[in-house]
């Protein structure tokens, strides 16, 4: 049933809710949905909100509408070949086609049928007139004789545009029930079951190639293209997802850009005019992003991440933060932080605290050390930094599940808000920063 559609798509990590259904209904009422390919396109426009959604969307769509489950690492061709839906369709198709066809071509034909949109049909039959006049039932009677396949062009055309959402739900439910009770029942969404846009054999035998306009090609491309199968946003920061992280960090740019009434100037010139105040304006534009990064570069635990982190903040510096200072420490901070990676030159915490309180501070470290290392003086230093710079966060490369097992981490977490060093974690860190004001 379609009412389970939002939930199904949500399970694939996509955003779908009751509005998705409402929009789908609106699209149906406006005549946008006439074929299964149209359903795909409309849902794609509504649900997919970034390129990395495409992979999950194709998966969810094939599973939901075609009962073709795609397992991780499986190609679309493979998944289709193994599916019952395809087997059922194939039997019917070969029967009608009456010749041997290779698997590859079969899959392509299948994809073409599945992704056939009303735009494709319009292109083939060129002319809205035929489309509008087309009456599926009548055509069926006239041309249902299989011995004259060349005349069957629109016989199995199903037009969803007249269906209400309820009716569509109804049909879906029937199909699904059948699927459950009678395995191998196939999907009525395709094939000769009545809903399919074209009976197979029809148009294709006529020599008109109604290749889906990229729909099928797109789907094939998507599954296996790393641009579409997203980098795991919860994976730890590495060179590949550094750009995703950067996008999150971008949230820290604060801009104030307004034309302001220049009070001083207005008064000055107003007095000159003998009390006639004609307003003077000045425009102000501040791009404010001042960042201090404190990196724990001591110990083996941090070694794998230091490079990615530096990479991230270097990119950040060149792109938008010119006030970016990087300091290093080992395990925790006592009375000083180091200005070079080898920790030979240092400045005192006192000096660090002299920075303007508008600076944002990123601590990056695993916060793991021997309990005695985190002594009173160190806790005091951390506290004073967090107190001075309200926008401080700690990014931890340790996987979240290990956090509860580290004693020192638990203490530091209490002092400074801590987030995982993943693109998603950085995003949340930035959000939490932005919710705090650097004033008071």
């Amino acid at each position, binding site marked *: 049933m379609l009412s389970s559609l939002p939930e199904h798509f949500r399970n694939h990590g996509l955003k779908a809710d009751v509005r998705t259904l409402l929009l789908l209904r609106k699209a149906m009422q406006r005549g946008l949905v006439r074929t299964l390919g149209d359903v795909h*396109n409309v849902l794609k426009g509504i649900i*997919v*909100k970034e390129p990395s959604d495409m992979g999950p969307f194709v998966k969810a769509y094939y599973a939901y509408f075609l009962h073709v489950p795609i397992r991780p690492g499986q190609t679309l061709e493979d998944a289709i070949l193994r599916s019952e839906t395809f087997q059922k369709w194939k039997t019917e198709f070969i029967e009608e086609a009456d010749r041997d066809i290779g698997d590859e071509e079969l899959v392509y034909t299948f994809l073409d049928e599945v992704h056939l949109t009303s735009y494709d049909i319009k292109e083939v039959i060129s002319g809205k007139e035929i489309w509008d006049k087309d009456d599926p039932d009548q055509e069926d009677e006239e041309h249902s004789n299989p011995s004259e396949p060349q005349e069957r062009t629109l016989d199995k055309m199903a037009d969803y545009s007249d269906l209400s959402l309820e009716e569509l739900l109804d049909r879906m439910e029937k199909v699904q029930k059948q699927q459950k009770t009678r395995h191998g029942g196939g999907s009525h969404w395709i094939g000769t079951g009545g809903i399919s846009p074209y009976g197979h054999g029809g148009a294709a035998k006529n020599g008109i190639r109604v290749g889906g306009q*990229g729909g099928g090609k*797109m789907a094939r491309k998507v599954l296996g293209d790393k641009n579409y199968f997203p980098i795991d946003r919860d994976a730890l920061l590495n060179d590949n997802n550094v750009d995703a992280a950067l*996008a999150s960090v971008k949230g820290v740019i604060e801009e104030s850009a307004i034309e302001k009434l220049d009070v001083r100037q207005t008064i000055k010139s107003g007095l000159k*005019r003998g009390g006639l105040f004609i307003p003077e304006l000045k425009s102000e*534009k501040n791009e404010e992003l001042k960042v201090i990064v404190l990196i724990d570069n001591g110990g083996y635990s941090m070694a794998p991440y230091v490079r990615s982190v530096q990479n991230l903040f270097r990119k950040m510096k060149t792109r938008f933060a010119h006030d970016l200072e990087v300091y290093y420490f080992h395990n925790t901070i006592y009375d000083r932080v180091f200005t070079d990676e080898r920790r030979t030159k240092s400045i005192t915490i006192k000096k660090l605290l002299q920075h303007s309180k508008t600076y944002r501070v990123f601590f990056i470290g695993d916060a793991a050390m021997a309990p005695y290392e985190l002594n009173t003086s160190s806790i005091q230093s951390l506290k004073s930094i967090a107190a001075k710079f309200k926008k401080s966060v700690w990014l931890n490369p340790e996987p979240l599940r290990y956090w509860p097992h580290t004693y020192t981490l638990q203490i530091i977490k209490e002092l400074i808000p801590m987030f995982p060093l993943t693109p998603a974690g950085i995003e949340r860190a930035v959000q939490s920063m932005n919710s705090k004001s650097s004033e008071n």
Partner: protein
Amino acid sequence: MAETTHWTGSNKYLCDPGLAQSFHMARTLGMPLLIEGEPGTGKTDLPIHYAKDRGLDLEVYPVGSKSNVEQFVARFDHVKYLRDSQIEILNAQREEKGLTTRLSTGERNPESLADYVVKGPAAIAYSKPNSVLLIDEIDKAPREFPNDLLYALSHRKFIMPESGEVIEISEEEMPAIVITSNREQELPTAFKGRCIYHYIDFPDKEVMGKIIEKHHPSIDEQVVKVALDVFYHLRRLGLERAPTTREILNWLKYMSETSPKEAVNKIKGLEGIGALIKTQTDMERVNRMLGASDSTFGARLN
């Protein structure tokens, strides 16, 4: 619902079928179309060519870091209003003293509030039936802008500040709204939810050949072929800033001034490659790679 016939591109603009369909869908549903994609894939060109081809009015709102909804819809120019009313007083005083010099308020009259309403592209587009409204590079906007915009767009009615003038448009005559983004900043989920989304893929060789043909119809086939080889080779190098459609078009424009044979040689010699490579690091990288291929494969690329 805007003008709802299916538009598939013009003789100057090659519209990807998927994009054409999304655009049609957005207009039919009366929703904005949000287009994302690499720079130089023709995001901004879509509404421009659509409006031109169909003879519709186009309103453009280039988004910048200062953008706010008031600029986009309409704002009341309080400052000008204050200035003009002060000038009225000043003029009256001068007249009393018998001075003839007057400060002008332009054509504006402080009595009529509508004179001080500065209409933005949205208000203008909504006051014309079936216009096209382009909101360009929304990712450059301050973070709250998209959500404010959403509120403005979800109503087909604007009330002008102070003057109270109402601009309203029927659903049938609503403008076709196209929003573009370069993905430099994540847009709020709620905002994306109200748009029809389309991501423009980078065109493959075949499509790119067609695009080039639309822009440079007279160019030699061989030249295009060689240029495309070099172009896609460069794109595969993983440069910091990969060359885009715009750049290859410029490069070929430069080449089209010479004879085809010469142009092929020039392209093979990577002449004018500065049109394709945009950063110093990329340039160094390309040079280094060329050096490497020189020593191993001889002058393959030269």
